[in-house]
């Protein structure tokens, strides 16, 4: 404020430069948001480095270690991608729901129910043991999507018909989902008293790169599985739906202004249910991919590992853009993987947190800009 006052005087004799925040009156160029996000990550890493230095560590060595542990070799890169796969699918689930301003916090539960649905296909002897994988896996995918879609349908229907707040209902559905699979693991499908189901037979495993190591030796030990491909294809399809389809147009319109959507003759009730089901189905597909590609059995801790919640963050950071979600998911996969390398908990999680805060704070510069004012220049 004091410098504002001084600007009333004809000449101000102060420092040669002043900084001023001004609201942005027109849209920033296309490259700006991307550059801003990168800038925010760099700032976050600098802050994180200072903290590491205070904790007595060498920030450069720590970061180098993190980079090596997530991208340093083809092996760890593959592990990063394995971690990114479930996050990608849950973030797509959140993206499409958030686009319509449906706050689906239940991707975690939908993910778990997807894992359950897929496991049910694999564990219940509906197929003869020799059924080829190309029949079993698609049916598992359908089972997973159905499980997730059902878990999305319930809060969606309650929202559409009875105006029940979907944040609360979808969040609560998460706990029901955990209790639901626990029941099956502890009782119905328990293997020898352990809290896990039996291992799936080979035809219920997603193909992994290492399965082809005999023909391509380079793939030896690489655990990246078909779920990644599934995720990328899903991202492309969701992008097409949101930006290029009639349905996606309706979703964007409802999300931006439900009154205008109603005025345009769009059925909001039906779309609420459908979008929640699609969101649930995507998260459920993530659950399927995790049991078919990584866990190979139904077990609580590796399935209910919080991928649904990470998906919320990734969806936001990618600005609800499905293609950006691919990159952000890989970044988060790397952070989760490398974090465990340097410390089981603590600093790595904190760096994740700092990155998040910086990215969210950088949004401020989407709406405001800094202007440098030289002395003598009229502001």
């Amino acid at each position, binding site marked *: *404020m004091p410098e504002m006052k001084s*600007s009333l005087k004809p000449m101000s004799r102060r420092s040669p430069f002043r900084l001023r925040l001004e609201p942005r009156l*027109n849209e920033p160029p296309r490259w700006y948001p991307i550059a801003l996000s990168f800038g925010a990550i760099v700032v976050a890493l600098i802050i994180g480095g200072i903290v590491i230095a205070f904790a007595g560590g060498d920030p450069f060595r720590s970061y180098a270690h993190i980079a090596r542990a997530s991208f340093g070799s083809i092996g760890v890169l593959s592990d990063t991608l394995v971690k990114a796969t479930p996050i990608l699918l849950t973030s797509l689930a959140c993206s499409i729901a958030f686009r319509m301003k449906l706050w689906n916090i239940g991707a975690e539960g939908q993910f778990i129910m997807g894992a359950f649905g897929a496991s049910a296909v694999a564990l219940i002897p509906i197929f003869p043991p020799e059924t080829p994988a190309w029949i079993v896996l698609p049916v598992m995918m359908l089972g997973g999507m159905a499980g997730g879609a059902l878990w999305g349908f319930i809060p969606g229907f309650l929202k559409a018909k009875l105006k029940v707040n979907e944040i609360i209902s979808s969040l609560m559905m998460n706990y029901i989902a955990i209790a639901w699979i626990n029941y099956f693991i502890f009782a119905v499908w328990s293997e020898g008293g352990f809290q896990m189901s039996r291992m799936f037979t080979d035809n219920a495993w997603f193909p992994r790169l290492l399965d082809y190591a005999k023909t391509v030796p380079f793939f030896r030990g690489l655990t990246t599985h078909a779920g990644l491909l599934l995720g990328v294809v899903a991202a492309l399809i969701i992008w097409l739906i949101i930006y290029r*389809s009639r349905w996606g*147009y309706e979703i964007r319109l409802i999300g931006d202004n439900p009154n205008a*959507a109603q005025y345009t*003759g769009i059925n909001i009730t039906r779309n609420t249910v459908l979008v929640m089901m699609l969101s649930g189905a995507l998260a459920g597909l993530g659950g399927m991919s995790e049991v078919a590609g990584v866990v190979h059995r139904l077990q609580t801790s590796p399935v209910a590992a919080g991928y649904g919640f990470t998906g919320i963050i990734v969806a936001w950071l990618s600005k609800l853009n499905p293609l950006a979600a691919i990159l952000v998911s890989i970044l988060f996969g790397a952070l989760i993987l490398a974090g465990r390398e340097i410390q089981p908990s603590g600093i790595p999680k904190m760096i994740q947190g700092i990155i998040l805060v910086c990215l969210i704070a950088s949004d401020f510069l989407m709406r405001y800009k800094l202007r440098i004012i030289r002395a003598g220049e*009229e502001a």
Partner: protein
Amino acid sequence: MNTTQQSNVTPSVQGDAHFLVEMHGIVKRFPGLIANDHVDFNVKPGEIHALLGENGAGKSTLMNVLAGLYQPEAGIIHVKGKPVTFSSPRDAIEAGIGMVHQHFMLVPSQTVTENILLGLDKPRFRLNLREYDRVIAELGERFGLIVDPRAKVWQLSVGEQQRIEILKMLYRGTDILIMDEPTAVLAPQEIDDLFKTLRAMVAEGKSIIFISHKLQEVMAIADRVTVLRKGKITAAGLDAHQTTRQELAKQMVGREVLFHLDKKPNEPGQVVLSVKDICAENDKGLRALKGLSLDVRAGEIVGLAGVAGNGQRELAQVITGMRKCNGGQVTLNGETITNHSALFGILRGVAYVPEDRTHVGTAPNLSVTDNVIMKQYRNSPIDRHGFLNMPVATKFANKLKDEYDIIVPTVETPVRLLSGGNLQRVILAREISGHPSLLVAVQPTRGLDVGAIEGVHRLLLDQRESGAAILLMSEELEELLSLSDRVFVIYEGLIMGEVKIGQAEPTYELIETIGQMMTGTPLAQVRIGEVEKNA
């Protein structure tokens, strides 16, 4: 203009005690534009000084400078002869300058008294609210600002909330009250009440700065008028009683404005819209329409006159399928459309220009393209087997942009960045481009500046000539009379009567008749009254 330049050469360092407020050579810049370009302005004690100009002329900016919200880059302000610099609204209030903004700044869950006391030093800790309730009730009575001090703000109408804002300033001892477009949110009778209050304040020696872009209001209330155009003064302190509306309009827009529209004689065709005995409830579940009937033919504009809140909104919603009615029938070209979906009507050629441009008519964060295809995206060629053909959509948007003079850098621009007039052009372009058989337009010119209003009127008349049936709802009687072929008058959900408007200038009797119907006298009774008067 001349006066502006003169004062630049010799800025008077000493204020003139004759004036209550003097602003000299005020410059305020925003990125990319000069909102105030060396503006001079003054206020005498005990006068109502109108600040007139189109949207974006810099009126609000200048007054925000005076009220301490903005700091000018150059210029001097004198209050009561002394130079002042305000760094916050608090400084301005201490100097006796208070501003009532367009958007009220009240706490809905608190009472009137609590809102007025908010931010003051006294009372310090223990609120003796009863005592203050009394003081505020007395203050209100003195100026004709009747409002219950113990009512919670959320329960009050917009007009009452405005009174609280004025009381807030009076309680703080304001001598100079700035009112930013105070009538924009008010119903006609509330405007009369406001004007009475303003006159009562002037009678007590206070001065009022009245920001407006409405000529008739300025002529009705102001003593002096200053006109701003594009950040510069075009007329300084004119005597309102010595000038004409045409003259002011010219200063405002920089060219002659046609008040008389070129309405061609037109023989209306067959009945397009027929509304019979419609009953419907409003959002609160109260009866808003009580068996209303009217009809609109092809190639005519039918006006619906009435004070806001008498069922106009509900009627428009029932016709466009956005509200269910619980009795009666709506037919479009002979087909019953009663209680079908909005989509049902859209597919049969119903276009609708809603009252609320930003909350109903457009999706603010979506692009111009996305906003203009709202009614077309279901049809070929924009729709291609469930997908949107974006090149076709973009071409369509660009075509409308050129045809309807929508001023945007590109059609990818989100519409929230558009001015009110441009936004209305987007909506009209979208609705008209579908060649509707029926166009329902509710308050299509509200809040627009003179130039934009003219454009909207032309578009409506063009539609009339091309054979569309138009139902126009407006609170501006003048607009209805100049555009309509027939006018229905609505009062409490019923039609009071119908009058035909000829090509000639509407007579005073006609306006009087409509006015009586607007306050609840059916046409038959108005006529009987006239006969008695004549006899």
